[in-house]
C-alpha cells in the first residue's frame, strides 16, 4: 500500500468534516429550534478537517521535515491535489469563521455560510477525484467513485453530528426526523453505488476484477461483508427505518408524543447507528486503498 491507513483516515475525516458542515447548515435552516445539531455540526467540522490535515502532513515525510515546502502545494493546477488544497483552504476558512461566530453566539454571515456550503461539497467531491483520476489503479478510475464519496461524506457527516448531538442532548434526535430520512436514503444509495461500481469495474478490467475479488471473497472479505456491509450499512439502515416507523407511530398518540419529547426513547439506537455509520465510512476508504491493484504492465 503506497497510500495506507493514514490517507484512508484523512479521506474519511475530510468527507466527515464536509458532511458535518452541510448537516449543520441544513439543520440551521430547517430546524432553528434544534440548536444542538447546528452547534455541534459547526464546531466539529473545522476540528475534524484540521485533524485530517495534520495526518496528511505526517504522511508527507519530505514536507514534514521541511514544512515551508507545503507552499508549493498551491502551484500545479493540473493536479487534483493542488485543486483540492484550494478547496480545503476556502472551506476551512469559512468553517472556522462560522464555528467562531457560533462560539461567540454572534450571527453568521450568510455569504460566508454559502461559500462554506459550496466548498464543503467541493471538498467531498475532490476526495473522490483525488484517487478517481489515477488511471494506474482501475478500481478507483471510475466515474461512480466521486459520487460514492460524496454520498458517504454526507452520510458520515450526519452520523458524526447526530452522535455528538445525542450525547449532549438526547431529546434533539426526535426534532430532526427529516435528517434521519435523508440519512436512510443516503445509506441505501451507498449500497447501490458500491455494488454498481464493483460490477462495472470488474467486468471491464482485469486489475479491477482482481481488486473486487480481494474485497468480495479474498483477504478483505470479512472486513467488507461484516464491517462495511453488515455493521456500516445494513444495521444502520434497519435501525433507522425502524426508528422512522416508530416515530410515526409515537406521534399519533399523546402518550407517544410525550415519550418522544422526553427523549427516553431510542437514544441507544441513535448511538449505535451513528457509530456504525462512522465505522463503515472509514472501512470503505480503507478497503479502496488496501485493494488497489495497479495495472498489470507486462
Amino acid at each position, binding site marked *: 500500500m503506497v497510500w495506507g491507513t493514514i490517507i484512508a483516515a484523512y479521506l474519511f475525516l475530510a468527507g466527515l468534516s464536509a458532511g458535518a458542515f452541510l448537516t449543520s447548515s441544513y439543520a440551521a435552516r430547517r430546524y432553528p429550534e434544534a440548536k444542538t445539531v447546528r452547534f455541534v455540526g459547526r464546531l466539529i467540522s473545522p476540528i475534524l478537517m484540521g485533524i485530517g490535515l495534520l495526518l496528511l502532513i505526517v504522511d508527507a*515525510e519530505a514536507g*514534514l521535515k521541511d514544512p515551508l515546502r507545503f507552499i508549493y502545494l498551491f*502551484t500545479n493546477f493540473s*493536479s*487534483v491535489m493542488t485543486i483540492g488544497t484550494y478547496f480545503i483552504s476556502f472551506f476551512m476558512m469559512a468553517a472556522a469563521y462560522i464555528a467562531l461566530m457560533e462560539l461567540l453566539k454572534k450571527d453568521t454571515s450568510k455569504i460566508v455560510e454559502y461559500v462554506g456550503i459550496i466548498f464543503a461539497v467541493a471538498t467531498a467531491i475532490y476526495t473522490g477525484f483525488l484517487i478517481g483520476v489515477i488511471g494506474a489503479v482501475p478500481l478507483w478510475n471510475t466515474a461512480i467513485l466521486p459520487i460514492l464519496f460524496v454520498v458517504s461524506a454526507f452520510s458520515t457527516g450526519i452520523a458524526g453530528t447526530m452522535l455528538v448531538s445525542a450525547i449532549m442532548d438526547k431529546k434533539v434526535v426526535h426534532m430532526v426526523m427529516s435528517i434521519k430520512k435523508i440519512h436512510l436514503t443516503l445509506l441505501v444509495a451507498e449500497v447501490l453505488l458500491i455494488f454498481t461500481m464493483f460490477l462495472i469495474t470488474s467486468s471491464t478490467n482485469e486489475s479491477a476484477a482482481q481488486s473486487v475479488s480481494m474485497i468480495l471473497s479474498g483477504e478483505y472479505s470479512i472486513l467488507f461483508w461484516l464491517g462495511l456491509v453488515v455493521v456500516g450499512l445494513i444495521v444502520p439502515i434497519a435501525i433507522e427505518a425502524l426508528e422512522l416507523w416508530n416515530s410515526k407511530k409515537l406521534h399519533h398518540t399523546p402518550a407517544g408524543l410525550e415519550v418522544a419529547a422526553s427523549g427516553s426513547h431510542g437514544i441507544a439506537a441513535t448511538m449505535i447507528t451513528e457509530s456504525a455509520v462512522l465505522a463503515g465510512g472509514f472501512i470503505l476508504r480503507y478497503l479502496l486503498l488496501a485493494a488497489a491493484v495497479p495495472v498489470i504492465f*507486462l
Partner: protein
Amino acid sequence: MARYGMVIDTRKCVGCYACRVSCQMQNELPVEESYIKFYEKETGVFPNVKNEIIPVQCQHCEDAPCVSVCPTKATYTTKEGIVLVDADKCIGCKYCMVACHYGARTQDHNTGVVEKCRFCAELVAEGKQPACVSTCISNARIFGDLDDPNSEVSKAIVKMNAQPLRPDLGKAKIYYVR
C-alpha cells in the same frame, strides 16, 4: 533539441543486475533501494516456453502522469524529455507513486523525497552514457536521441521493431525488444 530514449533488448539481458548496481552507485542508493526492478515472465505453453527477464525503470513518459499529478511541480520534464524530481520541492505526498503505471518510483525514507531513474541526466549533459548503459555486460541497452533518425537508438528501434511496454498506457521513451 535531443529527445532522449533507450532500447532494452530483453533477449540479450541475462539478469546479472550489473545495471542495477551501477545505478545504485551513481545515485548513491543504499542496497535495499533501487531504480531498476527486474521482472520475470513466462510465455507460451509447455514445452514451448520462453522465459523473459525484463528490467523496468522509469519509462520517461511523454505526458507523464507523475508530472501532471505532482501538486508541487517537484516532478517535471526537461527540454530533452527526461523526467526529473526537484528534491527541494518534493513534499513526499506519494501521489506520483500512486499515479505511475510502472511502479517505477521509490521513496527515500531518510529525506522523504520520492525518486526514480533520471537517465543519469548529469552524465548525459557531459555527453556520456547513463550508468546502466555503459555497464551492461551484454550490450542489451542502447541510449540516445530518439529524434535523430541516424542515432544508434533510433536505428535499433526500427531494425528490431522495439516497442514500449504498454503503448496503450501512453507514450514511453524506453523501447523493449522481446
